[in-house]
């Protein structure tokens, strides 16, 4: 695994009196697929919202390739090479795959006309075709509106868009949650191959099977805190579940403190 692409150190976010995120540190290495696990309210959403510029963090530091940054807005995140696919996908039903790929960043000329420039449909279409082929995304006819596609096809288009435009990091929020088995399989393959296209991936998922299938490493959050991390393999399955639901901590409390998650997991 390559160098560190993203480093999060002591990140905190407070909403009123409650900590959505408390002193969370983690890192993402180049070409890595990192799963972010945790129950509802664990802080996963807050973390990815901070990384994609939707909300600002209160404390801590974010370093991209070693350089401290403050991600100001979604646009800033794009500029930094971070693309996020939220659960609502942010697709436009009333246009086709090409229109969605280039939505808001259509290729135009001449450049001095800015947003009043002429749209170069042919170039956009050609590049979309190439990309979809390279990523092996199968969607119905190139002119089919996204609104006419199935959930899996839509998810595939959204993920492909993020992988294509993300220069550093692609963040995927529950990419398979609404999909049937076969459609999920296609999306998982897309995620697994993403590092070949030069991006590192953070994937949030509830589905342990899917995480084990694609992720190199899994970080667990609980109630806004970093709990631990491990390789998501079949052997570590129960240990991960224990970290997520916090049974380890409970047992530790019962036993009057002492060993942490490691041993709690080992016992189980």
């Amino acid at each position, binding site marked *: 695994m390559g160098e560190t692409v993203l480093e999060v150190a002591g990140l905190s976010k407070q909403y009123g009196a409650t900590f959505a995120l408390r002193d969370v540190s983690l890192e993402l290495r180049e070409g890595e697929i990192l799963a972010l696990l945790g129950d509802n309210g664990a802080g996963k959403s807050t973390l990815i919202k901070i990384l994609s510029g939707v909300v600002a963090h209160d404390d801590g530091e974010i370093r991209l390739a070693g350089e401290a940054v403050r991600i100001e807005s*979604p646009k800033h995140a794009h500029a930094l090479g971070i693309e996020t696919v939220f659960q609502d996908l*942010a697709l*436009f039903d*009333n*246009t086709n795959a090409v229109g969605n790929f280039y939505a*808001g960043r259509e290729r135009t000329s001449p450049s001095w006309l800015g947003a*009043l420039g002429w*749209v170069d449909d042919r170039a956009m279409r050609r590049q979309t075709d190439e990309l979809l082929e390279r990523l092996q995304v199968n969607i119905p006819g190139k002119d089919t509106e996204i609104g006419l596609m199935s959930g899996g096809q839509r998810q595939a288009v959204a993920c492909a868009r993020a992988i294509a435009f993300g220069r550093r990091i692609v963040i995927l929020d529950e990419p398979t949650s609404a999909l*049937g088995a076969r*459609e999920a399989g296609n999306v998982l393959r897309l995620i697994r191959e993403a590092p070949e296209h030069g991006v590192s991936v953070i994937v949030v998922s509830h589905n342990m099977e899917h995480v084990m299938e694609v992720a190199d490493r899994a970080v667990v959050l609980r109630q806004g805190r970093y709990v631990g991390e491990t390789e998501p393999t079949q052997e570590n399955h129960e240990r991960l579940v224990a970290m997520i639901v916090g049974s380890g901590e409970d047992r530790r409390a019962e036993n009057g403190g002492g060993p942490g998650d490691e041993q709690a997991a080992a016992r189980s």
Partner: protein
Amino acid sequence: MATATRTLDRTGGTSAQGLSLALRVIRAGPVLILALLVVILTLASPYFFTGDNLSNVLVQVAPLACLAIGQLFVILVGGIDLSVGSVLALCTVTGALAYGWGDFGGGILTVAVILLTGVAVGALNGIMLVKGRMPHAFIPTLATLNAARGLALLLADGAPMPGMPPIVQTAGAGELGPIPVPVLIVAGFGAAAWIFTTRIQWGRWVYLVGGDKEAARRIGIPVDKVIISVFVISGLSAGLAGLITAGRTDAGYPSAGQLDELAAISAVIIGGASFWGGRGTIGGAIVGVLIFGVISNGLNLLNVSVYLQLIVIGVVVAVAVELDVLRRRLEERFRTIQARDS
């Protein structure tokens, strides 16, 4: 149609094809309706399909065509502009006032004042909606529907103000060779709007904002500016319609254009634009205007009561919107089948 798709539903592939065919028919609906009307009226009245009469229809609908093109932009972002009829009248009045100050630049000043009045009210509509955080475009444009009409009547003292410079008269009633100038104005405006909506990045953004405002915002499109811009375009269209009307009547006409906003909205909807936003074309809006014009011209030729014409147009509007609803339902089903078959 409902039964047809239901039977098709039982076999996967055929069903998708059947649905896609049905969707295509719905999308071609406006053109089919226009063609049908033309055929029926040609058979019903020997006078209908003559050069004179068709040219007459085009001249008659020219102001409405301008308004409909502007209205399309607003409807594309999921809005509505109720003010355009009143703004049209206000434009003719401010034009008459400007002409009263003196005939500067061979009437160019009058033309400029007419168009800029429209642009100014359009910008006001957009800014009130966006910066005033109003819940829907209905509100600011309802306000200017009243205010612009009141201002027009006030400025004109409630009566027409006769006299327009020759250039304005030409715009409303002149001819260039065999072609009436108002028709040329509509053609020019329509062509510019067509290029803008299909080839220019900002025009693409209008569709994206109409498709999903939140997504557009998140992706970095300047949603507020796009919304204000469509109201400016709608205001400009009211200015153009005012120019044609002022030229035709040779007057500032404070009571002109009443209910024209509703006619324009109807025409856009008949032309296949979706009231939900994000869908519709300039060509469709023009076809909608022609359907409107052909219905009233044809029924006039057939001596059908004006009252009945209103009923017919009402029915056509209802049918057009219902087709849009049906389109959405068919798309929904299409999506389900896609998921199953993929």
